[in-house]
Structures are given as structure tokens and as C-alpha cells.
């Protein structure tokens, strides 16, 4: 159980000059309750800070929130920066009120996927679902974890 928890570690924060702190607190509470280890950087986090933390903590995913509308400006080249720092394969999620104004979510999603995010979420997303996706995506991106997992399966089945 302790081991399982450690294997889903994520870095969470609100990007740019964004001060919206409530969703961040809720995300931390709900993800933690769901067995995800959350390294929470809080609000006003730069791309560099996200990447530093992900490296330092050996996280399986970075969850970026952008609530205040400057998401498009703040998230540019995030995937490229990750690649530069050797995090080319890390799971990248982004969610919140990503753009200015009420826009069609499909086009917003497309724009952020274009920018290299694996998944893009509107504010109304069901966080329980996010937990499931997160586990699956982190597992899928972890090649050596596969063997490890199946090994663990055998151990558990024996016990």
C-alpha cells in the first residue's frame, strides 16, 4: 500500500501569475484521498518550478492548473521545456478556466493538446475520473514499472 502510493506521485500547481488557490486546495485534498501523492507547489508557479520539482521528486506527472485566463500565454512551450530537461515522457495534464471567456471546450482542448498536454480538463471535470486516468497514464508511461507491477501481482496473488 505504501509502495502503491509512492508509485503515483505528481507535481501540482497553478501556473503563471494566477492566484486562484481554492481549486488547488480541493485538488490536493481529493487526489490525496484517492491515493495519489501530491507535491503541491501552490499558486503562481513558473514552468521552471514545475519542472525542477518534477525532477527532484521523480514525479510521474505534472498537473497544471490555470484559472485566471492567461493559460494560453503561460503554458506555451511547456512540453518543449520538459523535453529539454529530459522529462520528454512525463504525463502532462492541464485544467481549469484555460482561456479568456466562454469558449467551445473542444477547440480549447485541441489547442492545449497541440501544445503537448496529454489531457485537458474543464472546471466541471469529475475528479474521481481524473484519479483513474492519472493512474492509467502514469502506468502506461513507465516502461520498467510494467515488470515491477506484474512481479508485485504475483507476490500479492501468493500472499
Amino acid at each position, binding site marked *: 500500500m505504501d509502495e502503491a502510493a509512492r508509485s503515483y506521485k505528481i507535481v501540482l500547481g497553478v501556473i503563471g501569475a494566477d492566484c486562484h488557490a481554492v481549486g488547488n486546495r480541493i485538488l490536493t*485534498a481529493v487526489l490525496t484521498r484517492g491515493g495519489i501523492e501530491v507535491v503541491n507547489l501552490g*499558486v503562481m508557479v513558473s514552468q521552471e518550478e514545475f519542472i525542477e520539482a518534477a525532477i527532484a521528486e521523480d514525479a510521474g506527472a505534472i498537473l497544471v492548473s490555470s484559472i485566471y485566463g492567461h493559460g494560453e500565454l503561460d503554458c506555451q512551450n511547456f512540453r518543449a521545456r520538459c523535453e529539454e530537461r529530459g522529462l520528454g515522457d512525463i504525463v502532462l495534464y492541464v485544467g481549469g478556466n484555460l482561456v*479568456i471567456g466562454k469558449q467551445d471546450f473542444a477547440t480549447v482542448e485541441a489547442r492545449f493538446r497541440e501544445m503537448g498536454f496529454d489531457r485537458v480538463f474543464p472546471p466541471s471535470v469529475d475528479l474521481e475520473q481524473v484519479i483513474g486516468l492519472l493512474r492509467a497514464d502514469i502506468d502506461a508511461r513507465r516502461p520498467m514499472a510494467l515488470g515491477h507491477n506484474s512481479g508485485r501481482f504475483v507476490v500479492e496473488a501468493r500472499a
Partner: protein
Amino acid sequence: MTEIENRMLSDATFQAERAEVLKTWPSGGTVDFDAAVAVQAALPPEKRFALALAEADAEGRTLLQPRAGVALIREHEALLNGLSPYCDVLPTTIDAYTRHNRYAEAQEGIDRSRAAGTSLLNGFPAVNHGVDGCRRLVDALSKPVQVRHGTPDARLLAEITLAAGFSSFEGGGISYNIPYAKHVPLERSIRHWQYCDRLVGRFEEAGIRINREPFGPLTGTLVPPFVSHVVAIVEGLLALEQGVRCLTLGYGQAGNLAQDIAALRSLRRLANHYFLNAGFTDYKLTTVFHQWMGGFPEDEAQATAVICLGALVARQARATKIIVKTPHEAAGVPTLEANQAGLKATRQMVNMISDQNRVDSPDIQTEIDVIEAEVHAVMREILRLGRGDVARGIVQAFASGVMDVPFAPARANLGKLTPVRDNFGAIRLFDAGHVPLPDDVLAFHRDKIAERARAERREPSFNMVVDDVRAISASKLVGRPA
């Protein structure tokens, strides 16, 4: 930095600081105080914020004000003129880069917005547009216009916008730090806002009345009334000390009608109490009620219902002004049409309530009693900590958790105080943290929360708080288990 104190900045200090402030971005170079006074003096009466408030207060009317701000001058002007027929006073909401003095990024936002043909900024970058740009804006309007932002260091913003004819300035050293910033020390933002207040005081001394409005709702999320009241009163005292004479104190809707009415009624009374006790008599006090400042429902009809509840209670409590939300609130910066819809719904509700019987009940009186006891307890401790100086006191109060704003991002805030709703939806303290409330008040909170816990057959816990935070957007007031 020398220790903060609540004393009027000397002319010398102010002038020296001013020279530095105006250098922080090129547009600062065009600011001239005498010219600014002339611009303000030339404003027709219908463009003066302080007058609009005073008249509304005298006639018992409630003014409506939207939020609005886009990147480019022409678009912003069109937006405000589109809102003008539906409201009484105008806003100019400043973008988030400017709020953090990141003018270079704001410039990039302007440029990219020009290229994209749509605003990529979440507000109007007034500093970048400079005095001339802002004046063009003010000239194109026919109602008073206020700067609304969230800027810990708003000195340059104040210089530029007041020089351009904006006649009201929102914010304060606490209310524009704790909910809006992360790393800014409280003494620094308070000091910077002493500058802003002193600037307004200098206008006042030059015969120009500029309205100042501390930001009432703070984080907008389950803020107990006493918490925002203490901030409002302290910021009022700080502003009065610097020569501000026209104050509008704010409160963000909590959702429970009795508590909201009690909050707005007690705010006026408590503020007058502390202001008079501090020796101020020649000020003009009005109130502003913010429609629900927490997470909204996504659906526009549901959002409109939230707006209507706020309109109703604001008018029942006889607020001088209402800050109006829009049916787009949960989605993003509203269109002109959505903003108009919020104003129209609010106006209809305010009008329908205006003539009706004054609302009073034992519940309201109980809430007033509780709020007053809380505010007095905290104010007493603030003054004790500051050895009579409210500026010093509030800094120490935040540092020690004597004052504590829920869900605030600022490091300067302890973050131990945790609110939760009671069984009737009023905001109570699940954890008072280090806030020194009287025992009977704490017992009242405990009992109220226990009553809810019994009704829901679960222990009070942070899960309950999480449910409450998400309740209104999930169409409820109290976050009950499914």
C-alpha cells in the same frame, strides 16, 4: 524596511518615493500631480464616483456595478459603453500581469491580443496604456469609473489612473495581498497602500474627492463575516490616516440570508464605531455587497439564480452598491451580453425588493451579536499586538494567526482557520486556528456545526469543507453527503 506604523506619510517621504515609483515603467514619466488635479476638477458631476455614492446613500438607492476589462483601449471603451445603460457606475478591471507589476508581460498580452483580434488578457493593462490612453477612455464614458484590480503594489497604477480621471480606486494593503499574492510580505503591501491612500489624501486636500474601496470578499470562499469585517475596518483606519475621506467598505455574500443581512448591517455600525473612536468624524462611509464570490454553477440559468439571491439580500440589507456577477461566471471572462444579463437580472430583483418591508428577525440579531463579539475580540488583540498601532498590529496578527483568511494563497497568512457551513448554511468555524475568539462564541460555532453533523450523520471533517466549497456550483448551499 523600517517597521510599519500607521502614521501619515510625510511630504518628503512621499515625494522621494514618488520619484522612484514613476520611474518603474516609461508611462510613469507623463504623470503630473497638478495636471491630474486639473483633470479631476474638470470632470462633470455625473462622472464623479464619490457623488454617485453620496446621492445613492442619501436617497436609499442601491447602485449596480459590473466587472469588465479587456486588453485594448478601443474594445474596452466599447465594452464599458455597452454596459453603461444597465449600470450606475463603471469598472475597469485590471489584468493579472499588471497586478503583479509584470508590465513587460502585459505588453506582450497587448501585442498578441492585437494580432489575435481578441483579448488575451483578463483585464485592462492601464499602466501600459498610460495616462493618455486612460484619459481617452474616461473621456469616452458618461459615468464614474473605478479601478478594480488586486495589486499588492498599486502605486504606479494609482498615479496613472487617477491622473487620467478615474474617480475611485479599489484595494488595500491587506485585501490586495492575502488573496492575491504569494510571496509579498504584509508590511510591504501595507506600506505601498499607504502611498496609494496618501495620494488619494493629497487629492482630497486639493479639493478632489476620490472614493476608496477596500476589497471586501477576500478569497470569496466561505469567509466568515468577522474576518472580512476586521480587514475592512483596519484598511479603513489606514486609509483615513493618510487623508482618505470617502470610503466604501465591502462584504461578499455568504449565502445564508440572515447572516448576510447581519453582516452588512453590522459592517456599517462597527466601522463607524472604530473610525469615530480613532478620532475621525469627517468621512463619508458607504457599503458594497458582492454577489457570491465563490465557485459558480456552470449552467447560465442556475448562475442567474445565484445572482438573483445576491441581488435580493443586498437590497434587503440596503447596500449602497452591488458588484454584479454574470451568467458566464463559472466559464470565463463574460461577453458584453452576459454582463448585461447579470445587470438586468440584478436590476429587476433590486427593483422588486426596493419597496418591500424591512427584514428583521431574531436570527439576524443573533448573527449581528456574534459578528460584533468576534470583531471586537480580534480588534482588541490587534491593537494589543500593535501597542495601539493598527498597522503594526495587523502585521503581527497575521504572522501569529490572530487574523487568518481561509483559502488564501499568501505565505503571510497562517491558513489554520477553517470555515464550514452549519445546518442552515451560515458560515461557522470548524477550526478557529489561533484567532482569539471568546469562549461563548467558540461554543456557539461548535454547537452549530455539531447540529449539522448530527443531521448528516457524519463527523465534521475537511471532507465537509470540500463539499461546502463545491456546493453552490453543484446547486446547493450546504454540501451534504449524496
